[in-house]
């Protein structure tokens, strides 16, 4: 991933800053700049998520793309934030401790590297609450 492409989303990736539609009250993470329900009547505002939620489903990645192969095996999950939206994130816990329904909270961690000597990307992971 290019530096600019990563840097552009740093507030979202580092701090779980998403958006909210002031018209219908829906929360969006990953952030959307257009409310799919209200469409032109939507009013999108920035929103800081609390960073707590639960695991909806998960897997343990054992064969990864080059950027992540140093991290295998790692737990990847779909997490439902307490405010409602769902996102995909890594859960920093032993693979055999992951389970559906598990409560988690956000932490700031290294996410991946571009090649063995490449740029290190940081972002949000989750840990058991």
């Amino acid at each position, binding site marked *: 991933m290019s530096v600019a492409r990563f840097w552009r989303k740093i507030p979202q990736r580092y701090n779980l800053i998403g958006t909210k539609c002031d018209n219908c009250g829906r929360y969006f993470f*990953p952030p959307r700049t257009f409310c799919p329900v209200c469409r032109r009547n939507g009013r999108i505002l920035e929103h800081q998520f609390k960073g707590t939620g639960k695991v*909806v489903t998960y897997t*343990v990645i054992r*064969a990864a793309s*080059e950027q992540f192969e140093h991290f295998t095996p*790692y737990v990847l*999950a779909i997490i439902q934030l307490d405010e409602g939206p*769902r996102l995909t994130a890594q859960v920093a816990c032993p693979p055999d401790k992951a389970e559906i329904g598990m409560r988690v909270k956000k932490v700031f961690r290294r996410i991946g590297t571009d090649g063995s000597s490449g740029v290190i990307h940081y972002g949000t992971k989750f840990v058991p609450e």
Partner: protein
Amino acid sequence: MREVAVIGIGCTTFGEKWNSSFRDLFIEAGARALEDAGLAGEKIDALFIGNMSAGRFVEQEHIGALIADYAGLATTTHIPATRVEAACASGGLAFRQGVTAVASGMSEIVVAAGVEKMTDVASGTTVATLAGAADREWEAFIGATFPGLYAMIANDYMHRYPLTREQLAMVAVKNHYNGARNPIAQFQQEINIETVINSSLVADPLRLYDCSPITDGAAAAILTTMERAREFTDTPVKVLASAQASDSIALHDRRDISTLDATVVAAKRAFRQAGLEHSDVDMLEVHDCFTIAEICAIEDLGFCRKGEAGKLTEEGVTSLQGDLPVNTSGGLKACGHPVGATGIKQIVEVVQQLRGEAGRRQVDAKVGLAHNVGGTGATVTVHILGV
């Protein structure tokens, strides 16, 4: 709208084809389809080519013109040639573009084809490229792989419905049995349940034998109006329905993780168009990029209720000898999955079955359905064909 028929089909063998280039593959499939229709290339008035990622797999874009050129139709008839892309549903989409062109009257005779050359890059690049079928920014960049996303579907499904590890393995066993009876299949050997459940874990609970392979291949179909079809063939196969639907690009934004709503909607549209019931369909080619995907497909297409497809598989209903044969070609699992070509290969298989040309895997069929999925279900096409 005019009625549309398939009058010719062609396919390369599927596999790791070290001796064939991207353009070789396409030309081989296209030439076979023309020969099958007894047609000269100059009669074709449009080309639609499904291809997911020649840009990353062979560093070639502008696929439409390239193929028109090597088919000898660029400098002679200056044929309009269009590449279409919807990840693994690119082939289904190309077929639908061809159907639309003929049905509307814009074109008389068209080629709808698909091609993918996947083995010219290292496997890490392949994994990264395929992950681009999902949400690059919010899935792949986080560490999601394509098998990882389907593994999360499998875990959600198995948490909610009574599907056993053995039933999941039976999907692969069945598809290898069928592949062993298909001369174009990448894997032509039968396997057993132990082979699947002892293979290495890729993304829990999915193991190597739950996953479709990396494949080179191409497939082509020739379409014209039902009215003109008999000029070219005694066995035209009628396109009874052509439907397409979309859903969120990311799996985490779905209404239900283990239901592909785009499949549900595309199937409803297709059955309405065709004026048919599910009981009228004799065989299916569904998008089994992973074993769990075949389970979801059978249910989401409406052939049984949610949670029942594992049992149907175990009872043999979906086998070659069963009441509803599924993936007679061997599916993506055993026949192989050259992503852009898969949707057209499904059509080729349905046509062969309906014409009675499927050899050792022949089933009794008058109506067949092809179901092609892009990504984890963000694009779905459903086609129903009949004789």
